[in-house]
């Protein structure tokens, strides 16, 4: 199970890469492995605003439908359009080409409420 050092994580198995006042958000390797083959992704549009932990999209595998929640408050700058035709990118490259949205952050202090790699690894051990 890959857990990149530079990311922060949520209990709903989203990851976030914070760069200045922007963030890229996706779902973790653990989440994609649990769900299986992705076949559908529904994402918000640029300009949509969300508060921390609001549902912002839906991902579907062959078997399951799962809501995805935004780790940090902000405004969507871009949604990953490649996923409309290639949802399998979430399986193949969850931390890279399988990213979901990019966000302009509105509350940077919220970062403190997220888990780092070690904390998420411990969390996964607990829920297993």
């Amino acid at each position, binding site marked *: 199970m890959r857990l990149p050092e530079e990311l922060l994580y949520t209990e709903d198995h989203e990851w976030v890469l914070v760069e200045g006042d922007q963030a890229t958000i996706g779902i973790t390797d653990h989440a994609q492995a649990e769900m299986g*083959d992705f*076949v*559908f992704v*529904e994402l918000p549009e640029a300009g949509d605003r969300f508060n921390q932990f609001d549902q912002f999209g839906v991902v579907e595998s*062959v078997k399951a439908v799962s809501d995805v929640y935004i780790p940090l408050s902000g405004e969507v700058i871009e949604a990953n359009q490649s996923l409309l035709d290639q949802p399998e990118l979430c399986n193949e490259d969850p931390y890279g080409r399988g990213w979901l949205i990019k966000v302009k952050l509105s509350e940077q202090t919220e970062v403190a409420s997220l888990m780092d790699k070690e904390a998420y690894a411990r969390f996964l051990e607990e829920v297993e």
Partner: protein
Amino acid sequence: MQRTPLYHIHQQSGGKLINFAGWEMPVQYTGILTEHQNVREKCGLFDVSHMGEIYIQGPDACSNLQYLLTNDVARLQINQVLYTPMCAHNGGIIDDLLVYRLGKEQFLLVVNAANTTKDFNWIQANCSGDLLLEDRSTQYAQLALQGPLSRDVLQQLTALDLTQLKYYWFVKGEVGGEEVILSRTGYTGELGYELYLDPGKAERLWQEIMRAGREHGIMPIGLGARNTLRLEKKFCLYGNDIDQHRHPLEAGLAWTVKFEKGDFIGREVLLQYQAEGYRDQLIGFKLVERGIARHGYKIQYNGEDIGVVTSGSFSPTLEENIGLGYIEQQYVGIGNQIEVVIRRNNVKAELVKTPFV
């Protein structure tokens, strides 16, 4: 939770285990899409040992089954298999099952795992005369080998001439050194076989088949692909597409209801439906806009409720999103437009011919 005799094999093979009807079963091994494609193009091996087996024997066995089941059991020859619903008096489907005629007065019913106890109690309460009734579910493991190469794989393991085994017939014999009931049946729409045997021998036979199939690209297949494979062929799944609130006629199973055979449970009501009509019909659709239909989603026409989705999935073979659902008769017709309500959005869909594949 109950485990099949192949539980340890599933663990060793990387099976992802889930609770299915109280059974700890593999939903997938390598991935549903890969497994699905492998069965359509080559072959795959399924553990379906959770299925129930009910044995009925005696001079009155056949006449009781005629009364309990909608299809015509009396026409069944020894070594033949029959698919049939079992209905309640109101025509609602209690279960759909396979009847194996083992002998003139001996039958084996293969029923859905979740329904085994319910079925057994229903049969016991509604049969009479000289017969023996036994729940033999723990005495059988069941493997399914499905796919265009399944015959080539199995033929390596048996002296039986598999080219002589016709669709919905079975033989008793040796496969891989084990005594089995071998039927040409399945839930995938491909050439395929189902094997029933002593649970104690199941692990060995599984390994024998996997070994024989290696050069044919065999894979173990989980319940996830089993579902997408059956959906593409419009095989009903009990608890999803049919249940006690649905009758065989609206489920598109009229071909399994033999009114002319004499009295059976549900006959009166079903005759009435046949004569006077009924509200809904099970139809197949594909989504023409983005979205995946799931069990329980509403079906609408111009914003008005006209039915409900019973099964829906991405179709790996078609690479489209397909589904089954009941809609009111007046909206039925190939090419007709409907809407599936997905998370409060109306997503356009079109009625299509079934089976989908």
